[in-house]
């Protein structure tokens, strides 16, 4: 059975890349889904999607933080 949160995390992660405000939600959804899948002992699928959503969310957050730091330093 596929974990429902995995697809949600993937969609949020991909959307967070152009819309950075979604990054925390993608990270939260991806991390929760991945933990559930690992804890299920193989009953739940979707680890790749959950991980992809988590990674995309982290990239989006890192971009947002880097952009903000640049702005604060350069301006």
């Amino acid at each position, binding site marked *: 059975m596929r974990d429902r949160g995995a697809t949600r995390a*993937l969609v949020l*992660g*991909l959307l967070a*890349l*152009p*819309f*950075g405000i979604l990054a925390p939600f993608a990270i939260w959804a991806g991390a929760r889904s991945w933990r559930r899948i690992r804890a299920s002992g193989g009953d739940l699928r979707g680890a*790749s*999607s959950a991980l*992809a959503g988590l*990674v*995309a969310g982290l*990239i*989006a957050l*890192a*971009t*947002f933080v*880097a*952009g*903000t730091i*640049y*702005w604060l330093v*350069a*301006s």
Partner: protein
Amino acid sequence: MIARAVLALAVFLVALFTYPGALLASLATRVTPPPGATAGPAGVPPWLHVAHPSGGMPYIADDQGRLVLLHGATPASLLEFGPSTTPLYPTDPSAYELGHCPANLPAGRYPPLCRDDLSAMAALGFNLVRLPISWSVLEPERGRFNDTFLDRIAQIVDWARALRMYVIVDMHQNAFSHYVGTGESVDLRYNSGAPRWATITDGFPSRVYNKQREINPAVFEATTNFWYDRDGIQDEYIAALAVIAHRFRNESVVVGYGVYNEPWLGWTLPPGFEDLLLFPFYRRVMDAITGVRDGLPCWSGFFMPAVCGYRDLGIHDVRHLMFLDTGLLREVTDFPTHLGMPVSSYPNVVLGLHAYTHIYTPDGLLGQKVPNTSYPWGGYDQGWDWAAREAKAMDAALFIEEFGNDPRDDPLILHNQLLEAERHLAGFAFWTWKENGDAHSWGLFDAPNPPTASSGCIREQRERLLARVYPRVTADPTLTYHYDPSDGRFALKARGRSGDSTTVVYVPPEVTGQISSDGAVRIVVSDETDGSRLVFASPTGGPFVVAVSPGRVTLTSCP
């Protein structure tokens, strides 16, 4: 395994094409060496560039490295507004030769631009003309450029040269195009920009909401199609800019190019509009015209992601300034709507702000009337200070491309905007030079009377405020100065080392006070033939002051 690889690739590509890619492309411009500028042909006036003092605010500088302040106005006479499909006034330069000036057409919004207009600008102390032009006139058919129109622009550049003025050639648009179609509340006399073939509305209705010409579904769609390079129309726009840049690549009177006036976001939301579409577009324009290679090599002809650069179009123009407008929402609301990331490794970038506090800011949009408004919350410095921070983050100089208002509000709006320009050492171009209409039109002059005349009298309050004493060039980019238009008093405080280049202060004919100096400076006052005075202040080492005493301000009398 394949599914994982596909997912990883999807994340990578989406990241590359959105903010992570945009940020990397942007930051990469900070470590890319700027192009070497060879000395251009000797020009009068001298070539300008953007100086980048370490840790300081970039500024427009001359060939001696002195900060240059440009004061000017914007005549809108070369624009093609609707509903007509031809320019209002002749584009053939011969119609303006030997001092001839076509009759004003009251049906249009703006009188023709003639040689006397530039002389009148120079008499007010302006050293700049911001010259808006329409893409629809320049490239009426796809790939066919209007050489006569280029000759007309060159004619105005020649007039400016004779008066030692600079020209910004500004690719202008308002609500994308006057080919968006007619409809409820649509007044195409306020639309200009793209030619018919580049206006792709996809059948969206043309209807204006909330009395704002941009809030029109057809304008949203056509604009969005431009930003996403539908049918290669953005490529055509870049090619049109390249045609202009090629024509004027050795012309120092042309100080630079306004790349795109008041960019509207279309269906895209900020900050993604600016960071992922608008500023990457600017980067591509500079790649194409200057030959710098920012961004990744990409395709063209359809949507180009933010990380994409653009091919070198062979112009290799590295001596002109690029005036970049922020998105229209930022320009008219006083607040940044984007991250303010560096755009290009090309060093001659200027952030062009449109300062319309009270007119398009929240108070104005809520119907509040000056002076009884609850805005700006941080004083007039709010919008300007944000703009200065944006410019510095982008490593760009700051210039106020437009500001203007109903003449009744001059004591509040115009007065304060000019004070901010002084405070931020920013040049400006006042909107607009002349305008048909009534007592509330925004021109520097009263509406024409009789209607076929070029204009009425110069508006007294505007002459008082805009014909100012100001430093045209200075070797001290941290100087402070203040002009009081009520009595003409002026004071400039600066520092200099012995041997520094002179600071030149312009004193218009209207100002009659005595000129003096104090501190480590020698001054020479030159009486000019038009009644103005130029003060040449040579530092001898240390702080100094140049001042004009209070006196009578003699405004032009009207017959």
